[in-house]
């Protein structure tokens, strides 16, 4: 199929083209409690094709997915249609990536049975009690084989594992029952990490049974120590994207501070070629560019934009790429330092969100620990809100780090002056 698509593209009037062929095999196991609800297997292939045409000093493009079962005639028709559609849009001219000397990657497909077995065994090994238990879980083990080709001669292939455990933990007492929801994504199954995380979630569940209503705290310090932290740092990562810069959604300039930091530490963010057991350890990005380590923000100063090549070129940058992994460096303060004084540590949100354009943060509190006047109370309800543009100036982050799949971030982050609405 791929050979035929390449032949059609080469014989067409396309000025440039690219193909992404993604083959995924997957094993899935769904559990209700510890009993198997359903088992599933997937064997699918997705072929994306994009053609480019130059005209009147513009570049047009159009893309489509070609079904792997398409006939030869159907492929030709789809490409001809793309060529017609490509001239409908007028974008400034840019070049696709060219081949680069990169390390040869071992293209070994992971064993799905091994990954799945690890997950099933971890879930069986969780220490449950009468009060805290696994309600249900869904386990996904996938093998990805991605091939990227373009008209400039790139033809690269990468194989990597991707897995996911969706776990629902319940906690109950005589009065009521609550649940906590978690999604753990990674390359393969990290048995120790998963067990540790689920057992911590069970402790949170137990505490949530005995919460008071969150009081109206007004402007208050909020500590983040779970995966909600990712949203805080995603704000900085996304605003350093070529896409955001070119479209003027972000005005952060290279060589200038991204915020008026007044705290002890300033942010350093690195793009990482790979991270241990990340599900995004692909050797190249969606446009065929090799991924590499790169400083994005250093001591609070913008150093390098990352993101799509199209916008990179419009900004006069030749070497941008779309990183799959990022690391946010730790600060100088310990976790204990960050947990001093009065603050609320929210460990469970309904759905914590940061808007990368407006900077607004918002989330309903499902479980938090309110540290006030030397006491600690478990609370729930109410919400946090405010804007990262304000919080960035005084944010504090720990010298310890924690990995969440394709992101490493400070284990504990403290924002000052967050609006905390009571329940």
């Amino acid at each position, binding site marked *: 199929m791929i050979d035929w698509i390449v032949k059609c593209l080469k014989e067409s009037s396309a000025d440039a083209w690219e193909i992404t062929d993604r083959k995924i095999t997957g094993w899935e*196991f769904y559990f*209700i409690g*510890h*009993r*198997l*609800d*359903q*088992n*599933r*297997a*997937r*064997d*699918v*292939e997705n072929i994306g094709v994009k053609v480019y045409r130059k005209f009147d000093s513009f570049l047009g*493009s*159009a*893309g*489509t*997915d070609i*079904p*792997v*079962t*398409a006939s030869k005639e159907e492929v030709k028709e*789809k490409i001809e*249609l793309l060529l017609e*559609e*490509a001239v*409908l*849009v*007028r*974008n400034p001219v840019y070049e696709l990536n060219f081949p680069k000397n990169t390390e040869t990657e071992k293209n070994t497909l992971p064993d799905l*049975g091994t990954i799945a077995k690890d997950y*099933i065994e971890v879930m069986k090994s969780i220490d449950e009690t009468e009060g805290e238990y696994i309600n*249900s879980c869904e386990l996904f083990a996938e093998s990805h084989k991605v091939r990227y080709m373009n008209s400039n001669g790139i033809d690269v292939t990468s194989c990597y594992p991707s897995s996911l455990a*969706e776990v*629902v933990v*319940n906690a109950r007492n005589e009065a009521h*029952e609550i*649940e906590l*929801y978690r*999604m753990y994504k990674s390359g393969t199954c990290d048995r120790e990490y998963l067990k540790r995380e689920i057992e911590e979630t069970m402790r949170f569940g137990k505490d949530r049974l005995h919460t008071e209503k969150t009081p*109206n705290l007004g402007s208050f310090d909020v500590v983040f120590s779970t995966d909600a932290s990712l949203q805080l740092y995603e704000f900085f990562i996304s605003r350093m994207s070529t896409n955001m810069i*070119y*479209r*003027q*959604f972000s005005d952060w300039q290279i060589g200038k501070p991204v915020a008026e930091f007044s705290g002890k530490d300033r942010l350093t963010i690195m793009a990482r070629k790979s991270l241990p057991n990340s599900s995004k350890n692909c050797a190249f990005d969606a446009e065929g560019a090799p991924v590499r380590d790169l400083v994005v923000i250093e001591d609070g100063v913008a150093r390098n934009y990352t993101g799509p090549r199209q916008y990179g070129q419009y900004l006069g940058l030749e070497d941008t790429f779309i990183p799959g992994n990022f690391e946010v460096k730790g600060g100088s303060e310990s976790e204990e330092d960050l947990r001093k004084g009065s603050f609320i540590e929210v460990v469970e949100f*309904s*759905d914590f*969100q940061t808007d990368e*354009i*407006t900077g607004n943060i*918002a989330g*309903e509190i*499902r479980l938090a620990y309110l540290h006030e006047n030397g006491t600690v109370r478990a609370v729930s309800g*109410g*919400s946090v*809100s405010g804007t990262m543009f304000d919080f960035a100036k005084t944010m504090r982050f720990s010298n310890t780090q924690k990995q969440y799949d394709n992101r490493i971030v400070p284990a504990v982050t403290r924002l000052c002056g967050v*609006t905390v*609405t*009571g329940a």
Partner: protein
Amino acid sequence: MKAKFSEYLNGIAPFMKKLISDLSGHYDYVSVLCTDTTGFSVSISQKSKAVGNSTMFTERGNVVRVYKDGLYSEYAFDHFAEDTLCETIRETLDRQLRLLKATGTEVYHTGKLSDEPCTVFAEMETEILPENADLSALVDELSSISDEAVKTGENVVECMVRGSSTHVSKMFLTANRDMRQSYVYSEGMVIPIVMKDGKNELSTAGVSGRKGPEIFRELRNRLKDTVKTANEVLNADAIEPGEYEIITSPEVTGLIAHEAFGHGVEMDMFVKNRALGAEYINKRVGSDLVTMHEGALCAEEVSSYAFDDEGNPASDTVEIDHGILRTGICDALSALRLGTKPTGNGKRQAFDHKVYTRMTNTVFETGTDSVEDMIASVKHGYLLAGMKSGMEDPKHWGIQCIIERGYEIKEGKLTGKVCAPIVMTGYVPDLLNSVSMAGTDSRVFGNGACGKGHKEWVKVSDGGPYLKAKARLG
């Protein structure tokens, strides 16, 4: 014009029927769902333009469901060799069963699905098919809307305008069923971005429906108001947190319907003991003014089909009747486990994803009140408009709605003050029991996609009339 059913699916139907027959020698129940969904998307902004012959939901592939010894198993595939497929499916699923045996895994025993004979062939009406759309004219029109926004809109620095149209063909086959349907849905959005004093804000307005690309004609009419609301948000104040009287616009009403008792009565959650709703059937959960429908037949929107992904016919389910929770919605396997009937709500994100109980169109019924009377009745509160996002908590009945903006009302009058964004939180029965007025006009919205937890994205719509209630805002 009828949305023509896929020739490709018609072509593979004989082989799929043979596959079902071959697999039936090894399993007690076999079904196949085959999909061939095409479409286009156009995305226009001042800085970049894109056209593609795919949408978030275009696909071509198949999934086989088999049943044996109390266990349902599935195998999803797109490419296949006719002579070896049956064996490949058996071998792959047998390898999984060996792993399950090796790990001592117990099966959640489920009964066998019935396979009553049923034949459906539905090609739904559409004015224009996506494949016949004049994309050149559409690109020009969307570009013109974006240009107009930037040229004439106050503080507008960018305006994204998007349109996508999807032509769904699905075929569900068993030994006794042959069900085929084809329909088109479309959605478009206009998103002006405004900037002042280094601060960015945006607002969105959409059009959607079980319609063809003709729906994009309505987009330009949404521009002026959306630019106005973007500027209102740009100049908005932060709200003083507290409990207020609220009036929800139809969009916010829809968000409440979706998050409050949409997810809360998906009955696969009953099977897992994940929904408090199971304990409240035939009990009061809202005021007399609260009647809520859910189903592919209760609106002509983006999730209005003839049958679901398990071959069950679409329905219109009254979930809440004058404040009393009557029933939930159910996929086929959950119905077997709960001893009830499926409601035609078994949906997959794509052919290679599992079926879950999912919402289709979730709508509050209208009442008899005017918006003017509602505003006049508010001592101190907000008219809430524009939807950002929401999150459910079916086990605890918490609700989180992030709302674009709130217009302050004092002593029965809009003061002109706007607050944004608004985080509305609370306990679902408290919120629904506080509904004291309901408007006469209803609107339904179908832009975007809905996840279950944080994955499994499907098309849904929701809406209803203006409602007056009480809620905690922050």
